[in-house]
């Protein structure tokens, strides 16, 4: 799992690459929280384009990030979701409560 971030004009974009399972999630969540706390962005975009695999650990990560961005009164969305993570998002029902898009905010 590789995590990269990009901050510009109040918008934080975070790129996840590799496999997001329980093994990777703790480290990913720590990195993500650090980036949000550093920049206090107005909007946060989670870009999954290079995510090869995701299980329900990814659901927990997305829900926690959404909660954190709500606390900051910012926006949050998930973009470029590949087929396998998309099926996990749909099966868990969070596609109904989280903003999931094809491109950025």
């Amino acid at each position, binding site marked *: 799992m590789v995590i990269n971030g990009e901050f510009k004009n109040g918008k934080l974009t975070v790129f996840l690459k590799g*496999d997001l*399972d*329980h*093994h990777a*999630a*703790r480290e990913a*969540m720590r990195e993500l929280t650090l980036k949000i706390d550093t920049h206090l962005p107005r909007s946060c975009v989670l870009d999954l384009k290079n995510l090869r*695999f995701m*299980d*329900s*650990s990814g*659901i*927990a990560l997305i*829900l*926690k990030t959404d909660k954190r961005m709500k606390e900051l009164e910012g926006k949050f969305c998930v973009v470029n979701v590949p*087929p*396998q993570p998309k*099926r*996990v998002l749909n*099966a*868990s*029902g969070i596609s109904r409560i989280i903003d999931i898009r094809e491109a950025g905010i």
Partner: protein
Amino acid sequence: MKVTNYIKIEFPSRSANEALSRNVAACFAAQLDPTLEELGDIKTAVSEAVTNSIVHAYPNDVGRICMKCRLFEDRSIEISIRDWGKGIADVEKAMEPLFTTGDDDRSGMGFSIMESFMDHLKVKSQENKGTTVTMKKKIERKNLS
């Protein structure tokens, strides 16, 4: 029904083995020439079950996990994941969507995902004895005309 192939694997409950075990299941399933979607579903379901044994069955120590994959004549695969850990007091409740005894790293969606990605799911558990999760999925034949 006749079993045409099988693989049994045993490994310690370390989180690094989540990827290993789902990849082994995928290698095994590959002999049926599944679609990428079917392969992804199997990997996801295995990942959920193995993660549960690592996180919930052995929360404070490293225990033993066994996975058995069996292939049947009718192109169905049965995968069982077994641990000898804490066990589940109320299986029915544990299987409800969003139910979790974990912290906010867990979503409570593990069993729901196993259920929706596989054709069949059975959970057998006894407190302080361990848990066995058995899942089945039929792989459709491609290129039917």
